[in-house]
């Protein structure tokens, strides 16, 4: 950590956490920062529920015959793992926790545009989550997180209806969050905070909100239709009732492919903030990066049938979608190159958030490039529905989104809690997570490429070495997730006082106290500097780049 030369700051006497006391003050709060903490606790809970299912899957796959659970239970484990992780952790994690906390602070606003709707979105999330947990406990769910029909609408004997209703309700939570962000960013920016002075984190949340608003109603409606087919035998997707199962896949993936960008775009925003902070340089190609964020949001809507190349769709449509899939690689590559260029000749330091950012870039690169294998018609037919696909999307969702989330949590933990975490332990933990992640998922690329299908509870013995390696990696991965909980909680009481701007960084959120007061800023700030302008910010206490010997 590079502290500024100023004397240590005192911990603020009054801040958003101690502004009010009691459970009621939390459950009825309209403060975006408190709501972010409600989300932090909730999504962490779902993460560990999903994590327990993942652990059971990996233990089961230690042996080719799979002695731990029955085939039916295995189906339920991977389904419930996917539902908990995707709908209740990955999609809300960065927007609802970090986005909620930071967007008003970053643009100099006192709160989001609709504080009550913000609280409502958390309640909808909890109601949806409660229904899904009810389905887990009342017979479980075995359809796969994709709810493909007619399995989900006709043949499954598991608790599909409450799960579908829960995800439907949770979808509205996502829509309301996106709506709140869009209106806030449009209407509540502080004087001088022009569009092209906004941090990249805000831009990526803007792009994410567009996807949330335009895509989520489609998946909510689609799951409602599947639910109606199951409960009332209305024919939408069941061929026996005149429906078409491929139509379900079209409608489902119209949202669920862009949903990957709901997970990854906010993480890209986090990584931009981390890299500029710890390279002490403006973001390379700022305007191109904003365009790339919006391009990912738009082009991400045009590629969905690459999930259906072997589902019976038209070969010609598949060809067109395969080509369109290649397009989305362009803005993603632009971002990766620009992060690298930002670090070039910067004063790079290796603090914990930066280690997560390094991990993100490498893992997202592998995840993205293997996505091109899957988006190419010929290779997809070979590796479709194999463990290769599982490895690919975990490199994007865990290597990308979760590493972004962890990096962001560490970057802004001093702002959220007002305290520093133990840096050495945190760095070790980040490295453990990186090693454990690769050990878990890289073998899955290999086993998938040589033919092991996904979602099978048994496998031929020749795959056992790779599976044992993967399970061993998962146990290391678990340590990388659990250790931060302990040291972050420890830091709340025992960590060093962070001060306003411990790294230091250029964003408006670092201009106010840590933790911030309820109203965020005592006086509405006025922005007179460009984004990430380290050179013209004497308040940061940094030498100018030219004086540091950097061009």
């Amino acid at each position, binding site marked *: 950590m590079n502290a500024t030369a100023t004397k240590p700051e005192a911990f603020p006497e009054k801040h958003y956490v101690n502004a009010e006391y009691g459970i009621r003050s939390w459950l009825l709060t309209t403060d975006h920062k408190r709501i972010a903490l409600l989300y932090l606790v909730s999504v962490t809970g779902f993460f560990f529920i999903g994590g327990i299912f993942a652990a059971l899957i990996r233990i089961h796959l230690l042996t080719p015959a799979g002695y731990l659970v029955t085939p039916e239970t295995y189906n339920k484990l991977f389904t419930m793992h996917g539902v908990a992780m995707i709908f209740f952790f990955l999609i809300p994690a960065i927007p609802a926790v970090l986005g909620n906390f930071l967007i008003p602070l970053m643009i100099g606003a006192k709160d989001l545009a609709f504080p009550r709707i913000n609280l409502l979105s958390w309640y909808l999330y909890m109601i949806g989550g409660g229904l899904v947990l009810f389905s887990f406990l009342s017979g479980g769910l075995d359809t796969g997180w994709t709810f493909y029909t007619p399995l989900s609408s006709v043949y499954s004997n598991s608790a599909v209806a409450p799960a579908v209703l829960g995800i439907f309700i949770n979808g509205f939570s996502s829509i309301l969050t996106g709506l709140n962000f869009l209106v806030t960013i*449009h209407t509540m920016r502080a004087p001088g905070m022009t569009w092209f002075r906004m941090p990249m984190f805000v831009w990526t949340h803007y792009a994410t909100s567009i996807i949330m608003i335009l895509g989520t109603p489609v998946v909510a409606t689609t799951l409602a239709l599947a639910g109606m087919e199951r409960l009332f035998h209305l024919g939408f997707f069941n061929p026996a009732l005149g429906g078409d199962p*491929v139509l379900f896949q*079209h*409608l489902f993936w119209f949202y669920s492919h862009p949903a990957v960008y709901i997970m990854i775009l906010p993480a890209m925003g986090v990584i931009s903030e981390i890299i500029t902070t710890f390279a002490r340089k403006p973001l390379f190609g700022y305007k191109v990066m904003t365009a790339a964020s919006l391009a990912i949001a738009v082009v991400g809507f*045009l590629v969905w049938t690459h999930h259906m190349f072997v589902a019976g769709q038209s*070969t*010609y*449509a598949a060809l067109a979608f395969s080509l369109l899939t290649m397009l989305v690689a362009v803005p993603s590559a632009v971002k990766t190159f620009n992060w690298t260029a930002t670090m070039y000749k910067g004063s790079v330091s290796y603090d914990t958030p930066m280690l997560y950012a390094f991990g993100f870039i490498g893992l997202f690169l592998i995840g993205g490039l293997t996505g091109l294998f899957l988006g190419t018609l010929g290779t997809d037919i070979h590796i479709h529905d194999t463990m290769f696909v599982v490895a690919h999307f975990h490199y994007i969702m865990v290597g990308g989104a979760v590493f972004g989330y962890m990096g962001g949590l560490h970057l802004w933990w001093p702002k959220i809690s007002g305290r520093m975490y133990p840096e050495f332990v945190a760095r070790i933990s980040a490295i453990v997570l990186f090693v454990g992640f690769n050990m878990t998922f890289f073998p899955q690329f290999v086993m998938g490429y040589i033919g092991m299908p996904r979602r099978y509870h048994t496998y031929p013995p020749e795959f056992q070495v790779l599976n044992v390696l993967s399970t061993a990696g998962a146990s290391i991965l678990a340590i990388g997730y659990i250790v931060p909980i302990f040291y972050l909680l420890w830091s709340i009481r025992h960590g060093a006082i962070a001060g306003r701007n411990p790294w230091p960084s250029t964003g408006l959120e670092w201009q106010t106290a840590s933790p911030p007061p309820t109203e965020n800023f005592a006086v509405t700030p006025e922005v007179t500097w460009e984004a990430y302008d380290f050179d013209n910010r004497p308040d940061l206490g940094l030498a100018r780049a030219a004086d540091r010997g950097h061009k």
Partner: protein
Amino acid sequence: MSEHIVSRGIYAGIGATLLIFTGITYYAATVDLGPLNVVIALTIATFKASLVVLYFMHARYSPRRTQLVIVAGFFWLALLLGMTLSDYLTRAWQSI
């Protein structure tokens, strides 16, 4: 921000128009026009939906930005329907 006040006459007129076109939809469904039945039903439904959006939802009197949001929603719906149809309409080509 001042809100545009829509007169009761316009609301009544739009309401009456919607009822009349509901009647026309019913009548059109009783006449066998082959594939045109669906086209006519959908055209009437689109017209009625447009009236609801323009007048009952005040889109006609809204700021440009709000109108842009509405257009974006329909554009995305067109993407969903059009690109899904690109699959259905080209499946028969597979034997070529």
